[in-house]
């Protein structure tokens, strides 16, 4: 491998300098990010890291992840109108399997809002999670589509990208499984959400169901960062005490406004384990996922 050794020397000779002023500015950004993170320690909905380059898609997927995380949670304290956090928590703990849909719209500054994405999620406390997202990038028009399967018995996360005919499989170790389960524990989520300020929106009717609405603008729930105008609204069935609709609004300065809604909830739905089994088509080849939500490790 003499040629390889020669080439290594070429790399070693090729010098790189650092401009000290630019370097200080870069580090100032990094330090500021650290300070913002430590000043906003609530990470209850940050279920992992999202690997994406597009700033818009980051926002949209982050919002989707937030919605997926919030679904096991009730945001409200005692409001005086009948719903109490303890009641909701007790009801939520009885749910083993639930399914819901998501829809996303994007409004460029000075333009009309338009739909750009939709998704479905099926969550089982024992089997895992299956989700499918399809997004139409508002800037580039690119179609982003991915199915994700988190299989607890098999300890794997499988991602299918139909547009690219690619797939990726990630093995989950004990720590990852434990983290995934811990972060889906409603008790733990509620305990942290209770630390946030929120208000009641009163009673109304959503999708033909009498609900009570709740609202929070605590941006720590959305991970902080460069988003503004963040708002979460939840409407819960006053009879079943389970969520009927959930909405997230957030703006990215200079880019536009994202609206994400979770709806069409089905609670305690019958489920077959086969629904969670990914089927990888024969013509798919291994490839990097479009995004990978990895349970954070303790």
């Amino acid at each position, binding site marked *: 491998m003499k040629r390889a050794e020669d080439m*290594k020397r070429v790399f070693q000779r090729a010098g790189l300098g650092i401009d000290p002023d630019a370097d200080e500015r870069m580090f100032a*950004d990094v330090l500021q990010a*650290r300070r913002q*993170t430590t000043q906003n320690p609530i990470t209850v909905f940050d279920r992992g890291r999202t690997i994406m380059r597009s700033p818009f898609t980051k926002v949209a997927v982050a919002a989707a992840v937030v919605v997926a995380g919030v679904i096991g949670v009730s945001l409200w304290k005692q409001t005086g109108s009948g719903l109490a956090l303890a009641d909701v928590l007790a009801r939520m703990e009885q749910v083993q399997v639930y399914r819901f849909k998501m829809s996303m719209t994007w409004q460029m500054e000075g333009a009309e809002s338009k739909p750009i994405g939709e998704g479905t999620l099926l969550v089982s406390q024992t089997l895992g999670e299956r989700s499918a997202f399809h997004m139409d990038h508002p800037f580039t028009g690119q179609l982003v589509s991915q199915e994700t399967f988190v299989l607890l018995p098999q300890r794997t996360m499988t991602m299918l990208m139909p547009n690219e005919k690619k797939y990726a499989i990630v093995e989950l170790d004990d720590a990852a499984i434990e983290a995934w389960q811990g972060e889906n524990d409603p008790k733990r989520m509620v305990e942290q959400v209770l630390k946030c300020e929120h208000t009641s929106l009163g009673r109304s009717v959503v999708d033909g169901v009498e609900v009570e609405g709740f609202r929070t603008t605590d941006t720590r729930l959305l991970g902080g960062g460069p988003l503004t105008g963040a708002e979460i609204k939840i409407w819960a069935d006053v009879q079943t005490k389970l969520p009927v609709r959930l909405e997230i609004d957030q703006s990215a300065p200079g880019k536009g406004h994202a609206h994400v809604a979770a709806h069409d909830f089905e609670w305690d739905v019958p489920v077959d384990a086969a629904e969670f089994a990914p089927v990888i088509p024969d013509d798919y080849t291994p490839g990097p996922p479009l995004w990978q939500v990895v349970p954070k490790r303790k």
Partner: protein
Amino acid sequence: MIEDKLLILGLRRGRPQALRQVYDKYKVQLLRLAIGLVGNAHTAEDIVHDVFVRFAQSADRIGLAGSLRSYLITSVVNGVRNHVRDRKRHGETILDHAESRLSPELGPAQWAILSEELASLSEALKQLPYEQREVVCCHIETGMPLRQIAALQNVPLNTVKGRYRYGIEKLRVLLDGKVER
């Protein structure tokens, strides 16, 4: 490895100088890797900047069992891959021929100052298919073992060995006369 774990622990305990040490320790290596992979200094700077920002935001969640160095390197590779994918979906010709030429001259807000040798090397790297470029840069710039690169690329080890061999050979031809014999 132990030094990195101590830095992460220090960072978790609120010591900003630990963040500075991580930044100073890895910035040049990550910048070199990104420049080699993406072939554009400004884009490489953006990618490495984002990697450090994400590290600063998520340091509390990074396990001490793993390697900080591998984490940062993999983050840069993923950042470049996403950039490449975004460009492809824009319908733009990427990297191989269309990125702006690297210049060793310093721009007004440029973080990385490229020597003429590095600019020439990056130009040559851009002529390689991306998979070969990734293998060559990861192995030579970071010392990442080929077996680890095979896992990163999700391909057999022999495929990576072939990409490395072909990549080196093509670089040698492109840099003919500049390779020390």
